[in-house]
């Protein structure tokens, strides 16, 4: 049987316009990596589509330790929730190479 190690997956969905800033924040907070996708969606800030410049959303996934995921989520909460369309959620995942995440 494969040995797996528990980690946390933090999923962030936010305005594409602030993606660059979040990328910088992730690096500063020590995220081991991330994966980003261009998405659209609907939430409290209405419908957001990628057709028109600045108007799309991005979805950023970070696999890391539970502590780091919470630290990042708290930071995003404090810094962006008031002003920008953004949601995030955490979930439990398992990885094969614990040293990488």
């Amino acid at each position, binding site marked *: 049987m494969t040995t797996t190690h528990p980690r946390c997956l933090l999923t962030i969905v936010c*305005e594409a316009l602030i993606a660059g800033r979040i990328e910088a924040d992730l690096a500063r907070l020590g995220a081991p990596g991330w994966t980003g996708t261009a998405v659209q969606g609907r939430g409290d800030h209405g419908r957001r589509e990628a*057709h028109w410049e*600045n108007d799309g959303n991005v979805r950023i996934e970070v696999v890391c330790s539970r502590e780091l995921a919470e630290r990042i989520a708290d930071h995003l909460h404090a810094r962006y929730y008031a002003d920008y369309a953004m949601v995030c959620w955490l979930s439990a995942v398992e990885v094969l190479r614990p040293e990488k995440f």
Partner: protein
Amino acid sequence: MIVDPVVYFFGFGLIAGLLRADLRLPGPIYDALSFLLLLSIGLKGGVELARHGSIDLLLQSVSVIAMGVALPLLAFPLLLRLGRLRREDAASIAAHYGSVSVGTFAVALSWLASRDIPHEAYLALFVVLLEVPAIVVGILLARGHRTGLDWRELGRELFLGRSVLLLAGGLVIGAAAGAEALAPLEPVFVDAFKGVLALFLLEMGLIAAARLGPLRQHGLFLVAFAVFWPLFAGAIGTLLGLGLGLSPGGAAILGVLAASASYIAAPAAMRIAVPAANPSLSLAASLGITFPFNMLFGIPAFVALAHFLGGASP
């Protein structure tokens, strides 16, 4: 007054948008169209700049920048007091209207060309000069003395933004290469211009339709501002142009620039620097009202004004 056919494309897009028909060009195509427009305008301006550039240009440039600073300072109290808008929204709208719309500029060029009205072709330079100052003024008006803004980051965003950079790059390449060397590039950058503009405007019509919603909620003031401010600012720009010795056609274009409102650079910058401002307000006004208004009425009005004051009949 005959309507330039490119305006029909805007109208077509607007109607399709209001019918909520799915006529959108994919995002990458829209990007490519605006990329091409900006570069084409820059190249043509650059060729003319190298040909006719003179010492006058320095004075003209300084005056134009001064206008870019002054207009939002005039618009702001109007929006704040008369419009009873929140400070952030007033500042943001002032920034949008102080900055410029390249699409409107392109329609104005096409309008003059189809009527053979002569004008200084280096005016693309003024687009570059007018894009940024009003945005900076708007940010300062919104934030006052508050600290915490990363001006270095914002400076990058402003001066290395797509439109400033493509226009400026086009200007430099156009000036460096000259008309003759650029001739083989004309099928893409000159001959295709009006077709590309038509497709771009179709898309703008669709986008404008999606932006009209918020106007219903925000009452008459914004609509009135979006119509009357351009008339006022356009008159100022036209007068300044004549005062700076531009031909009537050139002065009218400066009027169009003054009257036009940004819908790409300003929204992005304000969203980053003044996130508390409501982006739908400013976009509804600039894209939903002022853009079509200028295309239909503003351009001919400023051309007529310039010719009335400046001599030769249109």
